[in-house]
């Protein structure tokens, strides 16, 4: 399992970025809204970020193809 951000719900608070032990959450490239993305190859699926997200559904687990 890995985690990704549902951009329609995310409020870009950045808490997941703060707590991710792998530093896998990054500001999206060249995005003036400062939204975030989880880089799949850096996410280990530990799910440590999930309890910190204040918006239900903004962080979602998914089955990685790899």
């Amino acid at each position, binding site marked *: 399992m890995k985690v990704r951000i549902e951009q329609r719900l995310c409020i870009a608070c*950045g808490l997941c*970025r703060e707590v991710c032990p792998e*530093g896998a959450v*990054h*500001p999206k*490239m*060249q995005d*003036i809204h*400062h939204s975030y993305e989880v880089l799949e190859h850096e996410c280990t699926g530990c799910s440590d970020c999930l309890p910190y997200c204040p918006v239900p559904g903004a962080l979602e687990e998914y089955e990685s193809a790899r």
Partner: protein
Amino acid sequence: MQPILKDFLEKWVYPSGFSGPGVDFRLRQTERCIPAWEALVTLALKNAAQDLKSGSNEYKAARARGGYAAEGPFMSMKQMSTQILSVTIDEQPKYIDLQRIRARQIWDEVKHGQLHADVLLRGGWIKREEELMDDARANTQPRLSYFGMTAMFPHIHPLARAGQHYYTEAMACLGIWATLSIIDDPLVRHQLRSQEAEEMMHFMEGKYQMDAYALTPENQKPIEEVFDFLLKPWAPVPSRALGGSH
């Protein structure tokens, strides 16, 4: 005059929705700022060309560390708290529009710090942002900051920040445009394009403060004193990330 500066003046500095003593005051201060703005554009173009010639990617890390020192969480909170606290409780209704814009700027500056950290993370120079806490290059600025705690509080005035917004944030915009006119790199674009609109907003806040509020000699004096400071040769200059030297 550098074309980047000429364009900035024509599009953003000279047009105004206001008229009156605030605008007149701002245009007088603008004349003082232009030589420094011109010098910054020239320097930013030169620095960008030198970085490209270096043949190494290290310049991206140096720019990001410098940017983090100028816009990272510590500097952002320190500077922004002083500007919020410059308005007393009694004066809050009078300056509530400025306070709202300034509160938003705290969010902007912290996000800008994250962008600089992200360049270092994506580029592989660090694994965690926390590593920057132990790196003096990412936490120190070589010159006195007027809006640091020590310098701001003795000169505190609700409108003093207008000088910083107008002079320094204009430099941020100009430095970004000059840098991006030379360096075409995904990480540098990420660092600069993502914050460009907000730097412009911060500049426009300075412009608005002067046009709308600096209407009397009493209100103009503390702003003029900030320009007096910022135009000294030993005053702060933009970070390397924004085209400056540090």
